[in-house]
């Protein structure tokens, strides 16, 4: 007959092995014993070291009002790969940011932002606020001079960051043609916008007025060539190779009639189109006429249509590494001179943008894309937002450490009782 004390010892031993067996059984069941830890976005970084030391039976769920930094997302992704259940929920505004140096004077940076429709995105750099833009359907763009350090876009609590691109050294623009008001005022407008200009205007057979050395025309010194008419002079032989190596070419007005440019132009021109001018009309770009592109060359795209028949006034194409833009207008200078008080500035800005759109600009060194589209990165690494995993309260209530402590106490009690009775 066993004594009550002996029965107690057997009961303690059975309970201890029961707890251990239960724990062993639970460890074989997926998600069994998992508990969910929820944290808000701002607290995630502080919890990461704790989560890293925990066993994989803790489901990690973060509630976000802004996408965390990329390093936090990387850490969470690593935890996920190590066996943790990692989820997130919330609807942080999905903004993305890109920036390119504008090829031209002024160290301008072209910034493109994407975000939810009608969201207001604030831009700043290390020196302070730069601008703010309202997203319209597809996004928004802004050109800003002189970005210092990082470029940062914020919308609510969401933030995207990109390193400011290296500025592009302004190379010269060659303006070539016969002496005339169009060439003179194109060169003037570009100079006033800060472009170094090399000009060569034919005056008489074998006589030209030059500003700067025309040759060699290559991408190391020339960003773009503006051909005003069919007088290409000594440039004809080198223009094709220049464009294919990355140089920009602007074919203006009757220049598209030149046979030398037949393989480079965006399309064959038709007869000059002259719109009907009304007595009170203010002269604007194209108001006096242009050479419409009659048939586009393969790969060319129309950029501007004008007139009742929708004639193509501006078209563009890529040739090799270079870009070509064909402009039908041949007397844009009238826009500057007779276009009212704003005509002069508009003419200047327009021509500078035309040249910048084709100007040679060496590609920037590869840069890390960290933080440029934080929500997209979050989804790519951790999957889309979803609710926290539902785990039973019972299983959440029992911690493995507590169970192990209980089992040890039971075994210790059983062992102590037997020793006090003189048994081994």
């Amino acid at each position, binding site marked *: 007959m066993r004594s009550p004390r002996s029965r107690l010892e057997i009961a303690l031993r059975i309970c201890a092995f029961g707890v251990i067996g239960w724990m062993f059984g639970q460890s074989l069941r997926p998600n069994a014993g998992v508990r969910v830890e929820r944290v808000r976005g701002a607290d995630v970084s502080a919890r990461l070291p704790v989560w890293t030391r925990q066993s994989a039976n803790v489901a990690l769920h973060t509630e976000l009002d802004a996408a965390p930094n990329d390093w936090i997302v990387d850490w969470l992704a690593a935890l996920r790969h190590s066996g943790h259940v990692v989820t997130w929920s919330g609807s942080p505004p999905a903004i993305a940011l890109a920036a390119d140096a504008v090829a031209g004077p002024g160290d301008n940076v072209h910034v493109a932002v994407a975000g939810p429709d009608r969201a207001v995105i604030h831009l700043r750099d290390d020196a302070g606020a730069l601008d703010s833009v309202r997203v319209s359907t597809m996004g928004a763009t802004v050109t800003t001079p002189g970005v210092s350090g990082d470029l940062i876009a914020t919308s609510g609590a969401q933030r995207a960051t990109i390193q400011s691109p290296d500025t592009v050294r302004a190379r010269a623009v060659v303006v070539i043609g016969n002496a*005339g008001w169009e060439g003179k*005022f194109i060169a003037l407008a570009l100079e006033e916008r800060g472009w170094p200009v090399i000009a060569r205007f034919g005056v008489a057979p074998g006589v030209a007025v030059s500003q700067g050395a025309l040759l060699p025309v290559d991408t190391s010194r020339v960003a773009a060539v503006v051909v005003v008419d069919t007088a290409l002079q000594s440039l004809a032989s080198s223009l094709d190779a220049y464009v294919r190596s990355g140089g920009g070419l602007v074919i203006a007005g009757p220049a598209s009639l030149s046979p030398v440019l037949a393989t480079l132009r965006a399309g064959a021109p038709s007869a000059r189109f002259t719109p009907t001018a009304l007595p009170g009309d203010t002269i604007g770009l194209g108001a006096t006429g242009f050479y419409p592109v009659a048939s586009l060359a393969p790969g060319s795209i129309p950029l501007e249509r004008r007139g009742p028949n929708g004639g193509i006034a501006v078209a563009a194409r890529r040739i090799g590494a270079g870009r070509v833009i064909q402009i039908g207008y*041949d007397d844009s200078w009238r826009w500057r001179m007779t276009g009212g*008080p704003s005509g002069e500035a508009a003419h200047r800005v327009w021509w500078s943008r035309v040249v910048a759109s084709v100007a040679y600009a060496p590609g920037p060194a590869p840069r890390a894309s960290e933080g440029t589209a934080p929500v997209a990165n979050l989804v790519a690494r951790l999957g889309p937002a979803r609710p926290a995993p539902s785990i039973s309260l019972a299983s959440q209530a029992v911690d493995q450490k507590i169970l192990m402590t209980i089992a040890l106490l039971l075994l210790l009690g059983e062992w102590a009782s037997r020793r006090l009775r003189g048994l081994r």
Partner: protein
Amino acid sequence: MSAEFVFATAQYESGDWDSAPLLPANIIDTIARYTEIPVAPTGVIVPLSDARLFRYPLVYLTGHLPVRFSDTERRNVRAFVDRGGMLFIDDHNHDIDGTFHKTATEEIARTVAPLTELPNDHPLYSAFFRFDGPPTTSHELNGWGDNLVHKHLLAVQRRGRISVLYSNKDYSSEWNYHPDNKRFLSVDNTRFAVNLVVYALTA
């Protein structure tokens, strides 16, 4: 043809703006003779008070009498040079401190900026033909018996370009003849006009 160069003579309310009526045809003949610049066969007269002024980025102005711009003329001339136009003024008197000279230079100072001496190595003098400075005229060299030679032209320059060119040389008398009569000259005395036009079209 929209690319044609059109020689424009300024008409202003004060003074005798039409004192050299043969000059435009003579200059047009010279441009056509020496260059391949497309040039309109006849010149135009453009009032300084009219918006048509802005259609002609090079405008020639002359006279003997006092010059006083009206407010509209002054506003237009200011906008004209601001936008890149070039105004060539020639004193038809070729004297010193005459009424045209005094009033025209004052008017330009008030409307645009004070005139200063143009260096004789300015690109204007090598834009087509080469000159060591402004070519002298027969009226300076004993034409009127005064041996009064002006060694420099005056100019207002903006960003290195001439906006207003002012001459005391009396080119208006020197060039004011029918172009057929060039054949009687051993050296064409209108060659400097080519430099003027080429400079205006290229600088």
